[in-house]
């Protein structure tokens, strides 16, 4: 049974390490400035590279003349697209990018040429000497316009002649009979929603260093989340033997999905290093981070949601247009995720989605924390709130009634195992004082609720293969020190710490005797990367696998010395002890030495692969399939200033079912960080572009952390984390993900709270002061014509038709 552990107390008495509140193994190094990030690396003779970027949103490259740049004193090499003609893309079916543009630029900021020089100043000067002749092409900034285009030039050549090359992907899936479900519904709520794009804003800009050695070896250090994919793509695009390519991932200063595919700088440092024979570093400026983007797609969404008179969902119909930017990135997956991940934690007998991703001449969108499902979750949870209001059902109660349950299948055949969603709802309801606040706070103050689910990794990897998704290798020293060679990427989330906790738990070794070596393709087994919330589940299981193999050897050796059975040998607290008679013991070091004497040099590997064939049989059924799903519920409390439109989010109660909290401190950190990031997107972030009327269409509105505003600590609400542990049958010690799920409900919970506070529906993000103010003005202008629904407190009725959008409610 799931248990609530408010504040993340450690309940798990069956464990010695797991479940305790512990430091990160790399925490001290990062807090004291000892951690060495990619840009901290200085190599002898290192050159500095810079990338020349397109000033046009869409243009043909007629010619590039770099001769003057090459002649500049201090310049060692210039490279262009022609040096790297092989296309790539993180999804093997959509390779539509080149390290530097070959013949066409597709957004303001697209890379055209790169130089390596003795210092950054010289490299910058050299960029100014590269002569590029462009022929401008018509550009598309709206996905609707891109989709409507009847003839070229398209942003990309169509894969088949006669098709619209501006369309990346179309997915249309229907489960059950949606029209019949809607027709039979007692209430159908219909609404249009818009999710403005946002970007990741990691504090560390992307950075890479290339070093080529005689004999053909190439090393690339990069601030990446996916060293393995980078390894593969470097070898493929640059036509190198992958066994001679090494990718090293130093500590990463934040990623959030923004570093989960190869970027131009990684190919450029490699090529420039091979050309010059000297190491080459490229560090993005903050502006370039905004151009690299791969952030959350703008979504235009239309939902129809039908329910019976008790609020039980009958049918859901979604029409979604994704604004993809200039390249495909993960867009194929995003397009599926826009629909596939909506089918829990609520039952829905019939569901249909039709999602179209279009190219536009803007920086490419991709995966950001909660990839593909944050936008529809916002719309859907607002829809649920409106149904609850129409039916005069408490919105938490409505969500409870529709709970899909544990050990079940969703309408689109996703396999649900553990499910602590009801406990999440209970926890936020109690902690927030919901019953004394909802519809009862004075005008200007309100509470809102929302729920969600997310994957713990994907059952199918980005490129098809039958090998494990994650691997770990352990090596033991005679001193008692255990080294963990982890393929996974520590990006601040705690991957290195997590494997240390696992080893400590299994082998009884003190944490300070464990070394974690990660993110180096020359030394570590393969893990596919830090994305899709896959690391704890997959790497954790792989590490348990390795540790238990080693443990078995140690137990056997000690059992032999004690004339006991292996199962009677316990390893904990730095000791090997005899079960039932813990007075009989020896140090773990002595136990390791016994095992080494018996078996030879000690070491073990472990791996994890996902369950296959637990999904539906339709095309696309594998996308969204995960070994386990996390569940979250939030209540947000807001204070709206009706004169200015400012929304102060005062507090968010975050309940999250993470299966088991291996270290509650890190789980709470992920919950708070997620809720913060969702809150930031809800009230502030706008990744937008200038229009032609504003001087230059497609030019980034504000590529700086001054004018692309993310909340400061003073703006951030109080955050209370309520850890729910449903103990998943397949997760490591029962753990599931915690890094992305708890972002989702923030946004709709805030939207619903704004409605409770001032009676307007915010259907377009962000809920910035101008938009909230305008919504309130429209509501005032509309006067008292709003239809009474019997739920909203006096003077605060929901105006049908909403505001900040064009939602309308339809009763058949």
């Amino acid at each position, binding site marked *: 049974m799931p248990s609530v552990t408010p504040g993340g107390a450690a309940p798990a008495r069956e464990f010695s390490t797991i479940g305790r509140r512990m430091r990160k193994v790399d925490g001290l190094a990062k807090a004291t400035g000892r951690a060495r990030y990619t840009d901290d690396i200085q190599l002898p003779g290192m050159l500095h590279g810079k990338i020349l*970027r397109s*000033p*046009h949103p869409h243009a043909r490259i007629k010619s590039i003349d770099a001769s003057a740049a090459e002649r500049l004193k201090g310049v060692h090499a210039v490279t262009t697209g022609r040096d790297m003609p092989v296309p790539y893309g993180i999804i093997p079916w959509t390779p539509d990018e080149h390290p530097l543009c070959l013949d066409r630029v597709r957004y*303001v900021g697209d890379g055209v040429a790169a130089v390596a020089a003795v210092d*950054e*100043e010289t490299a*910058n000067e050299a960029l100014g000497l590269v002569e590029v002749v462009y022929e401008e092409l018509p550009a598309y900034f709206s996905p609707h316009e891109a989709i409507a285009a009847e003839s070229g030039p398209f942003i990309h050549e169509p894969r088949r002649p006669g098709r619209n090359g501006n369309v990346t992907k179309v997915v249309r899936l229907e489960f059950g009979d949606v029209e019949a479900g809607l027709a039979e519904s007692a209430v159908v709520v219909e609404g249009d929603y818009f999710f403005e794009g946002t970007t990741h804003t990691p504090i560390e*800009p992307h950075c890479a260093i290339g070093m080529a050695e005689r004999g053909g070896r190439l090393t690339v250090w990069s601030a990446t989340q996916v060293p393995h994919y980078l390894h593969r793509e470097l070898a493929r695009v640059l036509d190198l033997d992958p066994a001679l390519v090494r990718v090293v991932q130093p500590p990463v200063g934040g990623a959030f999905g923004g570093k989960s595919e190869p970027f131009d700088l990684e190919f450029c440092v490699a090529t420039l290093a091979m050309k010059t024979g000297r190491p080459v570093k490229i*560090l993005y*400026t*903050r*502006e370039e981070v905004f151009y690299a983007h791969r952030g959350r797609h703008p979504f235009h969404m239309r939902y129809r949601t039908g329910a019976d008179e008790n609020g039980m969902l009958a049918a859901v119909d979604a029409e979604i247009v994704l604004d993809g930017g200039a390249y495909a990135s993960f867009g194929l997956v995003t397009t599926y995720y826009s629909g596939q991940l909506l089918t829990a934690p609520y039952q829905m007998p019939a569901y249909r989605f039709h999602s179209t991703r279009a190219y536009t001449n803007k920086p490419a969108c991709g995966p950001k924390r909660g990839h593909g499902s944050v936008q529809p979750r916002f719309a859907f949870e607002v829809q649920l709130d409106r149904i609850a209001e129409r039916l005069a059902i408490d919105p938490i109660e409505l969500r409870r009634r529709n709970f899909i349950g544990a050990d079940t299948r969703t309408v689109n055949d996703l396999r649900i195992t553990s499910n602590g969603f009801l406990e999440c709802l209970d926890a936020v309801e109690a902690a927030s004082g919901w019953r004394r606040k909802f519809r009862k706070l004075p005008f200007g103050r309100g509470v809102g609720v929302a729920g969600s689910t997310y994957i713990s990794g994907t059952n199918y990897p980005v490129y098809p293969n039958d090998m494990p998704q994650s691997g770990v290798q352990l090596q033991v020293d005679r001193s008692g020190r255990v080294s963990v060679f982890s393929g996974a990427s520590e990006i601040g989330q705690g991957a290195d710490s997590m494997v240390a906790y696992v080893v400590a738990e299994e082998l009884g070794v003190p944490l300070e005797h464990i070394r974690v070596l990660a993110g180096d393709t020359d030394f570590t087994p393969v893990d596919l990367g830090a994305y899709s919330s896959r690391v704890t589940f997959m790497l954790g299981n792989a590490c348990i696998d390795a540790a238990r193999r080693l443990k078995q050897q140690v137990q056997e050796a000690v059992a032999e010395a004690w004339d006991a059975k292996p199962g009677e040998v316990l390893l904990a607290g730095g000791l090997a002890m005899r079960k039932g008679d813990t007075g009989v013991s020896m140090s773990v070091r002595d136990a390791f030495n016994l095992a080494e004497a018996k078996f030879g040099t000690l070491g073990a590997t472990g791996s994890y692969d996902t369950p296959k064939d637990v999904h539906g049989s339709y095309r696309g059924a594998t996308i969204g399939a995960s070994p386990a799903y996390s569940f979250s519920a939030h209540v947000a409390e807001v204070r709206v*200033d009706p*004169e*200015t*439109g*400012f929304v102060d989010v005062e507090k968010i109660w975050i309940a999250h079912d993470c299966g088991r909290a291996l270290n509650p401190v890190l789980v709470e950190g992920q919950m708070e960080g997620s809720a913060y990031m969702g809150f930031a997107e809800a009230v*502030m972030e706008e990744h937008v572009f*200038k229009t032609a009327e*504003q*001087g*230059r269409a497609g*030019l*980034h*509105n*504000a*590529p*700086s952390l*001054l*004018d692309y*505003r993310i*909340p*400061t*600590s*003073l*703006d951030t609400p109080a955050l209370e984390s309520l850890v729910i542990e449903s103990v998943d049958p397949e997760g490591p010690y029962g753990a599931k993900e915690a890094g992305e799920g708890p972002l989702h409900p923030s946004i709709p919970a805030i939207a619903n709270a704004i409605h409770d506070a001032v009676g307007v529906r915010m259907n377009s993000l962000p809920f*910035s*002061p*101008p938009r909230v*103010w*305008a919504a309130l003005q429209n509501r005032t202008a509309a006067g008292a014509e709003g239809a009474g629904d019997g739920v909203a407190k006096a003077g605060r009725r929901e105006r049908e038709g909403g505001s900040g959008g064009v939602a309308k409610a339809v009763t058949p």
Partner: protein
Amino acid sequence: MLRLHPFRYHRPETVAEAVQLLAQHGQEAMPVAGGTDLLPNMKHGLFRPGHVVSLNRIGELRGISTIAPPSNGHRPGDSFVRTTGATGGTAGHLRIGALETLHDISAHPDVRRRFPGLAEAAGLVAGPQLRNMGTIGGNVCLDTRCTYYNQTAFWRGALGHCLKKDGDTCHVTKTGKKCVAAHSADTPPNLIALGATLTLAGPNGRREVEAADFFIADGIRNTRRAPGEILTEVRIPLGRPSARSAYQKLRQRKSIDFPLLSVAVAGDFANDGSVASLKGVVSVLGARPRLLSDWEGLATGKPLNAGVIRDLAHRAWQQCRPLENVVGDAGWRRAMVPVCVGRALEKLAGLGTRPDR
């Protein structure tokens, strides 16, 4: 990262030396104090001085002191005497050296007691680290800001440049020949409302300029400071003990941001509580803070109550039209003029404080 270009860095120890260095290097030279505005602008390629003259070692530019009024000043029981607002005249004044940091000004007991609006404004500039470096001299001389100007060289190149730098088009007004980059400093509206005087030192000696006359409606160079001059001090007339001031800053975040709109009000009250004098300044409109006109008469002789505040706020709204020159919806910003003016006046009237942004 964005790089600073190479330049010579000078560290004179007197005003005379600083002025001489600026004169010697002419257009090649720029003065710097805290550097919180100049250095980012240099990294964006907006300025490329070959010589940067640091003012930080000039002791004469420091200090906050009250220069007492002459003995024939106001006494308790005096009937209302209108202060002229003129320079350090008979009423005495507070002198603030131009190098005083925004933090120190915001925390100074005399500033807080006599000029709460100024203290508040200084304490709302950017964030704590920047207030520890940024000076009042720098804040008064802050370059105007615009969404088409405070960008990197690459970005401005992709735009095709603008009137303020390297181009001939204003992307805000489209047609105008005049730069409308926004005056975005927090302290000057208060200095204007308080009738402060600024002292400039240049090759021809020193001169005084009223804060109200210091700014001009030209976004390219919006002050009367000549390039070879440095601001040495700010003097604020003390006024009567009954004088009050307040500041209201509109911004999206509770820290870091430049204002999207700013309102400074200063007034004096008769013994019966009615308004004796009142000034209001609204900024972040164009290049020059706007001293509200036809305003004082709406309030003089009346108590500063809700109805009067509403009238004053409406009059301000009629006069103030924010432009699309900073990142923030101009229509909303205009609608916020009466809200912010109203809130500043509520503070002034002692009707309570509502959130600054």
